[in-house]
């Protein structure tokens, strides 16, 4: 569905050098990305600010012309066939509106029907579905400028889907939203992805978006792909471990060791201990611990993806 081959985008930046002179410097925002995305995949695209996520998305949607490399979306070349491609993709830029600021939301939808030349019946059916899934009814008649960010984002999602796109690009769709709106957007996208007809590519800084939605995670840094695979693969690669947290009746004996684990924290006067599970199962570790000391409470923590990604960003 989407193919990128050694995709590059360079920007020339003029830097001040002296009072009038400017030095030219070339910055590679995207520096040789190779990716193939199949129909129906849901791909999360993450990376620190300035890593090249949005630039890549803009090259895929025909907004920016690549400096070098090949790119095709739905079998089309985005820039030369921009208007043709636009009929087959949907785009939501979290910080750019597709809606008409001064018009009621439903009028924007009606306009998009004309712009995308969607048959009235299809348009009505898609709109009906979005209205119920995204609870649009209460603000359909409100001018867009008066909508809350959460309401507007629900409107943007609808606007991007009314022409039945094959690929949906989302650039930070949950940015700035409150928890409830974020959940609404995620649930909607999950439902959309579950049908398997729509390929979904989203960039985000909120890793909960990825955990909830994407089987495949692409991490980009300094314009290059540094990870491409599942979240589990990312954990395995960076050695993230689950950990066992136990509240004890009495402090742990000083020479205590639990095979296959590493003691990473002792808090609450020695009454709470945390083991990182290095080379053993949770069951074996729990059994070993309970046999050695009286245990009041136990919990098992999944590795925190935020930590993994933070480590990924800061590593050179």
């Amino acid at each position, binding site marked *: 569905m989407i193919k990128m081959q050694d995709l590059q985008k360079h920007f020339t930046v003029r830097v001040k050098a002296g009072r009038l002179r400017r030095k030219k410097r070339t910055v590679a925002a995207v520096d040789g990305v190779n990716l193939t995305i199949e129909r129906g995949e849901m791909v999360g695209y993450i990376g620190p600010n300035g890593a090249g996520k949005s630039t890549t998305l803009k090259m895929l949607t025909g907004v920016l012309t690549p400096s070098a490399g090949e790119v095709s979306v739905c079998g089309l070349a985005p820039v030369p066939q921009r208007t043709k491609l636009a009929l087959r993709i949907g785009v939501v*830029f979290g910080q750019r509106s597709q809606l008409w600021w001064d*018009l009621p939301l439903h009028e924007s939808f009606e306009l998009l029907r004309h*712009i995308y030349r969607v048959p009235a019946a299809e348009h009505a059916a898609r709109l009906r579905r979005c209205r119920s899934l995204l609870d649009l009814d209460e603000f359909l008649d409100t*001018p867009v400028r008066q909508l809350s960010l959460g309401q507007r984002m629900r409107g943007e999602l609808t606007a991007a889907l009314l022409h039945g796109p094959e690929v949906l690009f989302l650039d930070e769709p949950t940015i700035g939203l409150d928890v409830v709106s974020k959940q609404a957007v995620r649930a909607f996208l999950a439902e959309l992805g579950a049908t398997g007809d729509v390929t979904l590519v989203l960039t985000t800084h909120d890793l909960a978006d990825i955990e909830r939605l994407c089987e495949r995670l692409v991490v980009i840094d300094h314009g290059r792909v540094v990870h491409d695979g599942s979240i589990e693969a990312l954990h395995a690669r960076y050695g993230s471990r689950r950990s066992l947290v136990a509240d004890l009746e009495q402090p742990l004996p000083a020479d205590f060791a639990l095979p296959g684990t590493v003691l990473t924290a002792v808090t609450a006067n020695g009454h709470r201990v945390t083991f990182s599970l290095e080379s053993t199962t949770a069951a074996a570790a729990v059994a070993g611990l309970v046999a050695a000391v009286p245990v009041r409470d136990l919990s098992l923590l999944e590795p925190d993806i935020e930590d993994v990604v933070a480590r990924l960003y800061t590593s050179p």
Partner: protein
Amino acid sequence: MGDLRAYAALGTAQLRSATSYRTSFLVELFGNMGATVFDVVTVLVLFRATPAVGGFSLREAVLIVGLSSAGFALADLTIGNVDRLKSYVRAGTLDAVLVRPLPALPQLLLMDLPVRKALRVVFGFVVLGLAVAANDIDWTPGRVLLMALTPIAAAAFFGSIFVISASLAFWWVDSGELGSAFTYGGRDFTSYPISVYGGWFRGLFAYALGFGFVAYQPALALLGRPDPLGLPAWSGYLSPLVALGAAALAAVVWRTGIRHYRSTGS
């Protein structure tokens, strides 16, 4: 056909947006007429001081300013708002335009069609009508055709200048008001008989850049006057060709420019 309907929808949406602020719309509608009125008044005032300017009488000069004003107002109404491009480029909002299945330029023009400038066009054509009535024109079929085509050619010419100067923003975001020197400066240049300008200045603007063919040369051809600067009589009929050339150049500049669009970080 589908495209036309899409453009019509975009245009009416803009009209409804503009009229949703009713008072300011009306104020702007009439406020805007002032600018064009002043262009013409300037010429009238000039002729109170002297009976002839550059060898032209008041009646003849009004025909020139009428052709120029009508053409410019038409271009300003339909294409002039392309100068908003620089704010779209600076803010990166052109992205939203580029992901829609329509060419970018017509979308931009319809997205904020300045309906408030409509009265200027009316005024420009009224002046042109009066000028035609005041001059004793010997109507041949060629002149009728020229009369019909000249305002449109002038509008196309000014429109091309608008597009070219707006396109500067693709390369140079701070292009500021540089473009206005050519658009509004060009309008002022074409409002007078070019015989009032001197030497290299006239050579550059009137002939090299083509502003002389917007109103001056066609006016000579309509009046049947020989050109005091020596161009042959048929040169007035070149104005549609000059406009076509300018439009072609503008299209090339626009296409090249849009490939240089850099968007902004988000």
